[in-house]
């Protein structure tokens, strides 16, 4: 998704790299802290090379070293339209954990419930971090919505772990042969 994200931001209006960076920061809030700012420029250069964007020197401001204004080409417009229409969604990788529990129980190598507990601890730590970040966001912040998505996914995973716990609790295990 990486290149298209930057490309699509140019669809609003031709922009300087630092303007895109500021918009990304606003959209991502604290999650953007780990982002490498230089990446925006690297991506813009790649997009230009691929013919998806063009750049023009602008008068700019003397305190800004980057005076290039980037704009979409026709091919870039098309790519953005295609990207917006694309149905991509990350798939959660649950099968590995599921098979881990089965393998541990079958081989007597570990207690599935202990594995569930360890996993739960890790997810709760992540949830705690996400909530701290959410509490730090003002109402209606763009980044707040993203963090809410993280919180909801973690909650879904934690609910699944509850189901794992129920199934692997000894008195149920007999029923499952």
């Amino acid at each position, binding site marked *: *998704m*990486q290149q298209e*994200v930057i490309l699509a931001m140019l669809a609003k209006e031709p922009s300087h790299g630092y303007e895109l960076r500021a918009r990304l920061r606003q959209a*991502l809030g*604290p*999650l*953007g*802290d*780990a*982002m*490498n700012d230089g*990446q925006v420029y690297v991506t813009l250069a790649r997009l230009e090379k691929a013919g998806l964007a063009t750049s023009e020197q602008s008068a700019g401001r003397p305190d800004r070293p980057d005076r290039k204004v980037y704009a979409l080409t026709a091919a870039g417009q098309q790519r953005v339209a295609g990207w917006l229409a694309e149905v991509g969604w*990350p798939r959660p990788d649950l099968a590995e954990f599921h098979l881990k529990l089965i393998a541990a129980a079958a081989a007597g190598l570990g207690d599935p*419930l202990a594995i569930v*507990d360890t996993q*739960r*601890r890790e*997810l*709760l*730590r*992540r*949830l*705690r*971090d*996400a*909530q701290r*970040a*959410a*509490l730090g966001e003002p109402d209606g912040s763009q980044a707040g919505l*993203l*963090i*809410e*998505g*993280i*919180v909801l*996914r*973690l*909650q879904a995973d*934690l*609910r699944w772990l*509850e189901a794992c*716990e*129920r199934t692997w*609790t000894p008195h149920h295990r007999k029923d499952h042969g």
Partner: protein
Amino acid sequence: MNDVGVPVLRACGLCKLYGKGEGLVRAVDEVDLDVASGETVAVMGPSGCGKSTLLHLLGGLDRPSGGELWLGGERIDQLGERALARLRRDSIGFIFQAFHLMDELTAAENVELPALLAGRSARSARRRASELLERVGLADRAGHLPSALSGGQRQRVAIARALVSNPQLVLADEPTGNLDSQATMEVLRLFEDLHSSGQALVIVTHDSRIAATADRLITMRDGAFVDETRLTGGSTGTLGALAGLNGLTE
């Protein structure tokens, strides 16, 4: 205030048994727990694991079958009914899933009530109630009846009421069980605030969001503690990865 190192709450070998012989149920089975001032402990576990029974024992709402219970350095499991009632009123705040507000009293009156019962003057109770309603962000709703408040607002009134006697210990049973996501956030914010004001807080919950705000998380199964963990560490760098930001920064 307690001396450093003396836990606000201490349970040793706490038990609650029902029935006998073949039908004996160990609802709470030899539980040991220390909670320090300013500490938040969450107890999670499947339905029927004994967590609500445990909370009732900790709050003196129910009597243990065995073990010891200490509050602020005083042993309380053997107190008489009257002394126990006084202790509940003065030293413990309760927060319930269903709020348990008095429908015919305003928000402010609900908050004042325990202070009045504890023998405070009407004036001092009113002052304390208005301080607390301010703290939970409901100063402008003081004169409303519970029926005119949203679920989240009712629970915030109930939290203010739990704090009116400035209890050493606050016990919460599924405090967000009836709340939507926005109202849950409001309660989370308040609990974070309690945390910094030095109250010991024990929360029994199914809600992973509220459990994640605790300092310590205890997992309960079949009446016993089976896992205990401190929730620390991590950074928003990891959060970025959870939101799929890696692709952006590569």
